[in-house]
């Protein structure tokens, strides 16, 4: 079984490499390794106390409503960057999808927001630490700054997202 997994892993890597030369010119994301964290490692993205407002979206490539709303987070990243708003996209893709699905997705969609990956199977331990309100369904989004924090277990369209973020900028 382990051998099979290794073989699969290597063959996936091969596939990504073949595809990469054409993609490298698009963005710097391709050449970078994915930032994969357990929850302890991810916590620093959920607890910053600087002057910025953080929009942390939990998503995965296989989650259709997540993929649908990603462009709105990307648009927010573009439009609100100057207003000290930072978007962090936390992927919950499974480890066996990192090479064959997640990396190509990031490249193909030219994601400009920061993408990190959370790989921590003990979700019962960490979901309540993100928010006591979270049942665990994705998409889900946390918006916070040093004085305010709100969690949303829902999908957004751009106007809804913008309106929520505006409340943090007052």
């Amino acid at each position, binding site marked *: 079984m382990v051998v099979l997994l290794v073989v699969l892993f290597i063959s996936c890597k091969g596939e990504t490499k073949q595809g990469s030369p054409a993609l490298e010119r698009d963005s710097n994301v391709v050449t970078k390794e994915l930032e994969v964290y357990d929850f302890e490692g991810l916590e620093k993205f959920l607890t910053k106390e600087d002057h910025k407002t953080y929009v942390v979206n939990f998503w*995965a490539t296989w989650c259709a409503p997540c993929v649908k709303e990603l462009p709105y987070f990307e648009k927010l990243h573009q439009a609100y960057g100057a207003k000290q708003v930072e978007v962090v996209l936390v992927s919950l893709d*499974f480890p066996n999808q990192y090479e064959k699905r997640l990396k190509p997705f990031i490249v193909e969609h030219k994601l400009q927001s920061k993408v990190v990956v959370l790989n921590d*199977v003990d979700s019962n331990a960490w979901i309540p630490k993100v928010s006591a309100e*979270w049942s*665990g369904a994705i998409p889900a989004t946390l918006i916070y700054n040093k004085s305010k924090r709100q969690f949303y277990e*829902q999908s957004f369209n751009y106007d809804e997202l913008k309106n929520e973020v505006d409340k943090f900028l007052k």
Partner: protein
Amino acid sequence: MKKLMKLVLVAIVIAGVSAFTISKKQVREGYKVGDVATDFKLPNIDGKMVSLSNFKDAKGFIITFTCNTCPYAVAYEDRIEALNKKYASQGYPVIAIMPNNVEVKPGDSMDAMKARAQEKGFTFPYLMDTNQKIYPQYGATKTPHIYILEKTKGGNIVKYIGAIDDNYQDATKVKTKYVENAVDALLKGKDIEIKETKAIGCSIKV
């Protein structure tokens, strides 16, 4: 007095605002541990209608909201089947319910459910929440989402809500089998230690 009026005003405003935000979110009502769960009459993959009241000899149920199309649900398919194999004969059958809107998720259609059940050799009923009326009453928000019920004279009482175990990626690395521990406790007439857990899952498609 003025202070009191102010407080009341503030309370009204807060109530108004929170009512607004809650209404925007997904259904968050639903059962808590200790509540009586509703019965239902839903179509099974074999074409028959299934209700909890059909299971005369059952001591309870492992109600599992699941589907074909969610990777987390798929990761648990074999474990759901194993639960039924282990516990149906002891009086706690698995009853799987597919809650998604099939117009949004054609991969969860009745035909697709039949095909998947056959492919995987499911031995439990795999029902469709056709009108999407049952999952909101339970308060399920995602797949997979488990409700363990105990049959009593006062109805089917919710005893556990949450995940199957603590490792969706690798069944061999599970440390705590939440559902098995809960059913084992019920079978022994003991208190369930962990009555509620959280897990990542795919939002139910409306």
